[in-house]
C-alpha cells in the first residue's frame, strides 16, 4: 500500500536560516509527489509538485524540492525562511493518476524572530 512518512513532527528555525523538511514515500510505480502548506485555520495550498522530468522542482514562495528515487525521498527546502512561513507542511503522493491522494502526517514549522 502507498504510504508517506514525514519523520519530523515539529521543527523550529530562526528567521533567515535555511530549511529542509523530509518526506519519504512508499509507492510501486512512478510517483506523483506534492508538497502542500496549511496556514492556521486555512485549507491546504499547493507549494509544488513532481511527476516527471527534472528531479529538482521549483515552487511558490521560494520553495524547492528534490526527488531522489534511490532514497524514496522528496525533501522540501528553502534557503532563507521568513516568519510568514510558519505553518504546517504536508507531503503527498497521488494514486491512480490523481483520483486520490495519500498524505503524510505533516510537519509543523515554527519560526523564531
Amino acid at each position, binding site marked *: 500500500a502507498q504510504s508517506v512518512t514525514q519523520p519530523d513532527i515539529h521543527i523550529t528555525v530562526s528567521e533567515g536560516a535555511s530549511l529542509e523538511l523530509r518526506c519519504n514515500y512508499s509507492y510501486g510505480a512512478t510517483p506523483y509527489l506534492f508538497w502542500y502548506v496549511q496556514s492556521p485555520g486555512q*485549507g491546504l495550498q499547493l507549494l509544488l509538485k513532481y511527476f516527471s522530468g527534472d528531479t529538482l522542482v521549483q515552487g511558490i514562495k521560494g520553495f524547492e524540492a528534490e526527488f531522489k528515487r534511490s532514497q524514496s525521498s522528496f525533501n522540501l527546502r528553502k534557503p532563507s525562511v521568513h516568519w510568514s512561513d510558519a505553518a504546517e507542511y504536508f507531503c503527498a503522493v497521488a494514486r491512480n*493518476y490523481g483520483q486520490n491522494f495519500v498524505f503524510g502526517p505533516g510537519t509543523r514549522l515554527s519560526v523564531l524572530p
Partner: protein
Amino acid sequence: DVKVTQSSRYLVKRTGEKVFLECVQDMDHENMFWYRQDPGLGLRLIYFSYDVKMKEKGDIPEGYSVSREKKERFSLILESASTNQTSMYLCASSFGREEGTEAFFGQGTRLTVV
C-alpha cells in the same frame, strides 16, 4: 482561480444527530474528496467520487456516507454523529486522470460533536 467552498467553517452537533457537510467546486472537476484531519495523523481519505452518482470508499469510511447528485457538489453525511468524529473535515477536488493533476482544497469545517 479554482474555488472549493465548504458551507460551514465551524459546526457543533450533538451525539446521535445526522450531520451534513456540503462542498461545492466551480471548476468542473471530475474528482471530489472528503478527508478528515487529526493532529499527528495528517489527512485521511474518507470517501471520494470520480463522477456524478459514483462514490468510492477511502481509507476510513466507517460511520460516514456521501452523496454526489451534481458534478459540482459533494456532501459528507454522518448518519449518527459520535464524539470520535470530532475533527477538521477538508473537501478537495481534482481534474480527471491527468498526469500531475493536483488537489484543490476548501477551507475546512471544524466539527465538534458533544
